[in-house]
C-alpha cells in the first residue's frame, strides 16, 4: 500500500493511501484518504475488509490509532466500508460520519463501539481542531445517499466515485493527459451514475467551490485545470446508460 502526501500547511495534512500491490487480484483497487490535524484525524472511505490490515498498517505509520477519532463513509458499498467491523475493534471511541439513509444498512458490517453520526441530506460540517471539513451532497452519484468531503483551506474535494476510473495498481496517481483518461472513466460514470439531473445539479454546485485537487475513490487524482476539464466533460456526459446509445 502506497502513501502519498497531497497537502500540508502546518495546521493539517492530507494523505492518500492506495495502489496496494498485495491486494487480491479480483478486488477493485481503491484510494483512501486521511486528514490529520493537531489532535485528530478523519479517515475517509476506509475500504473493504480485504484491505484492512494493509490500511491499518499504512495509517499507523502516520498517526497513532487513538488519534483517528473520525471515519467517513461516502456511501454504503463494500469497497467503501465493509472493514467497519474491524475498525470497530481498533478504534472503539471513533465517530463514523455517513449518510442518514444508510445507517441501518451500514450497521450490518458490525458496529458496536463506533458512534454513527448521520449526515442529513443537505450535508453538514465537521470541525477537526482548527480545520473545517464540509460534507457536500452528491446523491445518486452513484449511491442514492452519497456525500463528498470538501476542505476549503486545502482546496481539496474528496469526490468518492465521481471521477473514478477502473485501473491497475500500476496506474499513476495523477491524471496526466485528460483526453487520454476519458476512456478509462466513461463507462464507469455512464453505468454507475443513474441520474443526469442529479449529476448536473452537483456540477453546478461544485463549480462554485475553489478546488485545486479532486480526489476520487478509484483511479487518478485531478489537479489544477484538469478539475475544470472533468466538470465540463461530466456535465456534457449522458449518464444512466447500460452502454453507449442504448437509451
Amino acid at each position, binding site marked *: 500500500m502506497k502513501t502519498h502526501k497531497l497537502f500540508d500547511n502546518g495546521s493539517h495534512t492530507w494523505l492518500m493511501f492506495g495502489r496496494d500491490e498485495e491486494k487480491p487480484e479480483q478486488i477493485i483497487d481503491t484510494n483512501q484518504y486521511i486528514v490529520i490535524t493537531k489532535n485528530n484525524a478523519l479517515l475517509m472511505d476506509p475500504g473493504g475488509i480485504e484491505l*484492512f*490490515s*494493509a490500511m*491499518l*498498517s*499504512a495509517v*499507523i*505509520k*502516520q*498517526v*497513532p*490509532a*487513538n*488519534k483517528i477519532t473520525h471515519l467517513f463513509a461516502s456511501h454504503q458499498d463494500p469497497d467503501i466500508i465493509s472493514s467497519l*467491523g*474491524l475498525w470497530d*475493534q*481498533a*478504534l*472503539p471511541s471513533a465517530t463514523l460520519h455517513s449518510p442518514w439513509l444508510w445507517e441501518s444498512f451500514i450497521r450490518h458490517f*458490525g458496529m458496536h463501539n463506533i458512534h454513527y453520526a448521520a449526515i442529513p441530506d443537505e450535508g453538514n460540517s465537521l470541525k477537526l481542531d482548527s480545520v473545517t471539513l464540509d460534507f457536500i451532497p452528491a446523491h445518486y452519484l452513484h449511491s442514492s445517499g452519497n456525500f463528498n468531503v470538501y476542505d476549503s483551506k486545502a482546496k481539496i474535494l474528496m469526490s468518492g466515485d465521481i471521477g473514478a476510473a477502473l485501473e491497475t495498481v500500476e496506474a499513476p496517481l495523477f491524471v496526466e493527459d485528460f483526453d487520454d483518461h476519458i476512456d478509462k472513466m466513461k463507462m464507469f460514470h455512464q453505468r454507475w451514475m443513474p441520474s443526469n439531473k442529479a449529476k448536473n445539479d452537483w456540477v453546478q454546485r461544485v463549480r462554485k467551490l475553489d478546488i485545486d485537487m479532486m480526489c476520487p475513490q478509484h483511479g487518478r487524482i485531478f489537479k489544477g485545470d484538469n478539475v475544470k476539464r472533468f466538470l465540463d466533460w461530466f456535465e456534457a456526459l449522458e449518464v444512466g446508460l447500460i452502454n453507449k446509445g442504448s437509451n
Partner: protein
Amino acid sequence: MSEASTNYFVCVAEIAAKLDQATHIAQQLSLTASNARAVALRAGERAAGFRPLTDFIDRLAEITISSSKKINLLASRLSQTSADKVRADDAIEHFHAVYIKAKNSPYISSLDSQLMRCESVQEDLNRKYRRQIDQLSDELAMLSNELRNAVILATLSRVEASQAGSEYQEALINVADNVEGAAGKIKEHIKYSQQMVSILEEY
C-alpha cells in the same frame, strides 16, 4: 446427513436445524397420543390398559418438544457466541498482521491497548463458548435418556394392543409403531447433534 463439518459455525447451525426437525417429529408424536386416546376410548374396557399409556406418550412428546426448544435456544446462543468469537479472532489476526507489516512504525504501540482489549474479550468468549457447549451437551444427554423410555412404551403399547380385540388392534399397534419410529428418528438427530458437539469441543 452431511459430513461432519470442520467449521464450528456450521456445526452450531446444524445442531439447531436437527433439533428443529426433532421438534416437528415430537409434535407428530403428540398427535399420535391424541389419536391413541380416541381409539382407546372407542375400544372401551378392552383397551383400558392402553389409556394410561397415551398419557406417557403425551409426556414423552412434551419433554421432547420443550427440551428441543431449550436445545435450540442454547444452539442459538452458542451461534451468537461463535459469531462474536470469529469476529474477535479475526480482529486479533488482523492486528497481528499489522504488527508485522508496520513493525517500524513510531505509533505501533498505540495499538497495544486495543489488542489487549480484544484478547481479553476473546478469553471471555472462549470461556462462555465452553460453558455453553457443556450446557448443550448435558441437555442432549438428558433428552437421549428420556427417549429410552420410548422403547418400553412401544413394547407396552403392543402388549395392550393385543388385548384390545381385532377391531382396534391394528390402530393401536400402529400407535406403538409411530412412537417407536418417532423416537428412533429423534434419537438419530440427537446422535448427530452429539457428534457435532464433540467437534465443537475440540475448538
